[in-house]
């Protein structure tokens, strides 16, 4: 069984991200990058499936983008992916085009399961998995918080606003993962070094026969402004008094 895990590269969530002064882009020059945390959860799940089922499982990590992607794909290999595919692409991509490129990869690799994060934490679009399932005409289950392979089918518990919904899909399928599915392992530098011998294949995006036609145009970036003021009050009574009379939070 082959599991394909598309992984996006996003700026480290701990860093302060600001827009450049001219608003044309996000200032990310000195910001470290990480695998999108939701994709890391998908990868962890794929690796765990492999650990449970043994050698019959092959986990392939895919990254689409510029040269910088190698670092995240090495991390994916250190996490336990058997192989990585780097689709080299210099253009800015939106979810639709990523899904189209991924369809080409899926048709090439022919996995039984595509496991990916429910969204990327940089643009929070939450569209790629759904687009991909539609393009492939595969069943999909989004926001998975628990999954279980049952022969040719997969049982997925997904988190909705109203509770847990359980789905049972035939394979092949696209499943996108939510936060509570698992706790990804730590791929240390030592693990990355140990995984250096694993194959990392480069594919030129142009050779996949996909013409990139952006559907989204970014007009402007602007940093969110937060103005927080802290004050210490002396007592509960004063707090209530201030909330009532100064802030107007209590009527």
């Amino acid at each position, binding site marked *: 069984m082959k599991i394909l895990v598309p992984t996006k590269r996003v700026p*480290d969530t*701990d*860093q*302060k991200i600001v827009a450049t002064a001219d608003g044309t882009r996000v200032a990310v020059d000195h910001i*470290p990058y*990480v695998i999108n945390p939701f994709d890391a959860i998908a990868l962890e799940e794929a690796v765990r499936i492999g650990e449970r089922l043994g050698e019959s499982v092959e986990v392939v990590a895919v990254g689409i983008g510029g040269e910088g992607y190698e670092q995240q794909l090495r991390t994916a290999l*250190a*996490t*336990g992916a058997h192989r990585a595919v780097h689709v080299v692409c210099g253009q800015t991509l939106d979810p639709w085009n990523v899904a189209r490129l991924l369809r080409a990869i899926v048709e090439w690799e022919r996995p039984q399961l595509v496991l990916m994060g429910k969204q990327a934490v940089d643009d929070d679009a939450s569209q790629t998995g759904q687009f991909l399932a539609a393009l492939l005409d595969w069943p999909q289950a989004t926001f998975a918080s628990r999954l279980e392979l049952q022969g040719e089918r997969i049982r997925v518990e997904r988190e909705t606003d109203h509770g847990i919904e359980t789905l049972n899909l035939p394979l092949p399928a696209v499943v996108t993962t939510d936060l509570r599915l698992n*706790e*990804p*392992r*730590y*791929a*240390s*530098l*030592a*693990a990355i*070094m*140990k995984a*250096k*011998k694993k194959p990392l294949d480069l594919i030129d995006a142009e050779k996949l026969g996909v013409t990139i036609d952006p559907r989204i145009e970014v007009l402007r970036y602007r940093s969110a402004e937060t103005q927080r003021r802290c004050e210490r009050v002396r007592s509960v009574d004063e707090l209530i008094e201030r909330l009532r009379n100064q802030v107007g939070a209590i009527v």
Partner: protein
Amino acid sequence: MQPALPAELPAGAEPAQLTREVFGNVPAWAQTLFYLLAAAAVGVFVYGIVRRVRLWRKGRPACDAVSWRTAVRRLLRDVLLQKRLWGRGMASLAHVLLFSGFVVLLIGTTLIGVEHFLADVLGREPNAPVFHKGLYFGVYELVTDTFGVALIAGCGMFLVRRLRGTGSFARSPADVGVLVALLAIGVTGYAVESLRIIHAETRLAGLSPVGYLCAAAFQGTGIGREAAGQFHFLLWWTHAALALGFIALMPYTRLLHSLAGMVNLAIRDHALGVLQPVSIAEVETTGQIGVARLADFSYRQLIELDACVSCGRCEDSCPAFEAGKPLSPRNVVQDLVGAMNGPGLEQNVHGDVIAAETLWSCTTCGACADVCPLGISPMRMITDMRRYLIGEGALRGSPAVALQKTERAGNPWGMAASDRLAWAAGLDVPLASERPDFEWLYWVGCAAAYDRRAQKVARSVARLLKAANVNFAVLGTEERCTGESARRMGDEFLFQQLAEQNVATFASRGAKKILAHCPHCVNSLRNDYSQFGGQFEVVHHSQLLSELVQQGRLKPAAHGKSAAGSITYHDPCYLARVSGVTEPPRAVLAASASGTGQATVVELPRNRRQTACCGAGGGRMWFDDALAQRVGQTRVREIAASGSDTVAVACPFCLVMLTDGLAAHRPDVQVRDIAEVLAEAVFEREANS
């Protein structure tokens, strides 16, 4: 009844020399048989040793070699004088008695062998010895007789302890058997001696007081000279067989500790705060990091395994064990010994032999290595095995996140590097980039840079340094985590990456003297960084502050809150035990408290080198433990029971752990860094004057 012992020369006898016949009452065939058996025993002994040495040599090479001079000095101090052994009351005494008895009697027996050999070569008659006579003989008899008592007493004490006690020490049937055998050798020795005194009518038998008394007792039973001779022969064989068997079995029993321990004490590299580096090139060729199999330990560590006698002192001093964590350093070592003697060196030790939970429980406080009389470091075995787990990606959850954040952001909290100077707001702290002629580089550390509570420590230090006109600077945003936690968690390459960055920063800023208020940073900058090209003097703030007080550059006067009540001091492991700094922080506190008449600090039951860990070392800071399961809760209770209303610390980790712990027991007890206590005393004075 007065025993008729030949204490006086029989009337009319020729004045013979003061001696006794070697192999007296033992016929020639028996002597030959004895030597054959002795050769066999030595053969079995040597075979056992060779087998062990072969095993040891399968370990990895160790780094620094120890000079002969050092090795000999250590043999004298730690083996002959048993320097590391004291500190366990009667058990220590028992070992010294047993050890001294064993060594003296072994030397005594060897001398007899030499005498017999020389006499044989020189063709002497049985009653004309080469040197075993006269004054020498007199001293010999007295000394060996006395140390025989020591041996028996030592064995007896150990046996009583094993039959009655409930302590952590080894008490398997094999352990008891070894002691019984040794005791039997001692007892039969005296029996043989006393029967010989009766049978051979040895002159001046009083030179062997115990033998003499035993002989008197035997004679009291009415035993005749002939019968004594027969019993003597019988018991002589028993004694000989026991002794030879004992020697033969030494390398196969717990007694191996005496041989492996001797070697280990002589050659170990023993600095508590030092870990051995792993090179990236090595990992790239072998594809492996850390200890997976026993063969991945260094040969010295394999010797350490054989040196362990399972006395349990490490377990008694282990804060993780005390807290009920699944870690006993003794069991770690003994389980590895079991694997070495069972499945062998190629067996992977992770999982079945040593559980990951066990390895992650260690706070690397160093107590186990510090108390081990044989110089074993279970802690280093643990950190070496952790390296493998990290390489396997076997760490998850909050500690894994801390490492990840350290790698990305340069601090375990994952806070932005641009915020590193937030602690110094309004203090006008000089930056190294702006003041290149600084004398001291003040290493702030991640805790004081980002943790709200610890920030106050750095503020106090900076204010004190300024008040004392110390020429210092900080690195500000150029500082990164030292990687201390990462290294002790087994993330060697993350540590090395950080060390290389920081060493380069130190070099570019020309840092020669570094000041830090975190004992973990101090040890890392001193012992870890020197392995990666860091050459500088590193000082803990307690040392510099106490010096400034002594020089009169800081003048504390106690008006502060802390000085009004009583104050106790909690020694951080990495300051007291690892770096050996125990008095400067006390001097700072005493100076701060002077003027209230309470110039002394209330000592906790476990203090200085014997301090008890707060639970945050070795990366435990980043583990999500429920409060009750945390390491260090007994320490918190100790502090609460001391009755002090302030506990002073000298480490940001201790500050966090003790604050959290005391909040549940005694929220009224203040936890404060020594710099805060001093700053309060110094600046109150300024405010009042």
